[in-house]
């Protein structure tokens, strides 16, 4: 447990865990998300995560696919708490974007109306 906590204390490794949270990724795909970091450095982070039992590795051809080992690490409510926070944030953005042009027009109409009503 201590090893896992130490592994996740590093921001790069937390970013990697988030990348492989919803699906598998190869080392190359993961490294592409960290353009300023060398491949060996990324590999080292992956090794730490794997040693700590935080990611599963599945070989496929000449690639190694990484995925977060969620089972046993996180209780279901915590997983869903995080999922809903993330998703409701996206829903908010999408719904506001859809209604935004209409709100802008309504605000403009209200301003024009005010101007008309103002005594000259």
């Amino acid at each position, binding site marked *: 447990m201590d090893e896992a906590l130490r592994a996740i204390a590093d921001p790069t490794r937390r970013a990697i865990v988030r990348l492989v949270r919803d699906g598998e990724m190869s080392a190359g795909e993961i490294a592409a998300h960290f353009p300023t970091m060398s491949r060996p450095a990324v590999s080292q982070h992956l090794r730490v995560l794997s040693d700590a039992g935080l990611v599963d590795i599945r070989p496929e051809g000449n690639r190694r696919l990484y995925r977060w080992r969620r089972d046993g690490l996180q*209780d279901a409510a915590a997983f869903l708490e995080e999922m809903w926070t993330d998703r409701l944030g996206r829903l908010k953005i999408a719904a506001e974007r859809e209604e935004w042009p209409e709100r802008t027009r309504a605000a403009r109409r209200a301003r024009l109306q005010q101007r008309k009503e103002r005594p000259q």
Partner: protein
Amino acid sequence: MTDSTGVVEQTVRISARPATVWKYWTDPRRMCDWWGATAELDARPGGVCVVAMEGGSVMRGEYLELQPYERLVFSFGWEQVDGAPPIAPGASRVEITLVEDEGDTILTLRHTGIPASAAELHNAGWAHVLPLLVAAA
């Protein structure tokens, strides 16, 4: 292992009317703007609510209650449990309420019937890790 059930409750204020927000729970195209990669939705009581995530997990639910623009309830479970917590289809329930407030919508989500599967591990120290993951998002 104890088999109690958990509840997740969240509230978010959205600068859009309830009628607009409602569509994000009933229209497949809009559902894919925020939740899944694909969605099959039949928004009527007893209709399917299936949302496939980008990672391959599939949420299979059923609409249970629909009061347009105010309240929507669906059952929630994972068809494929690889990587997702083991909640069988029909096992848990999500209630969405929409309340209009000065043209905005106050959305409250209540997810009930969640199995508290790895509670002992959570108590053993994972409670500290989760906020770290969320904070870094």
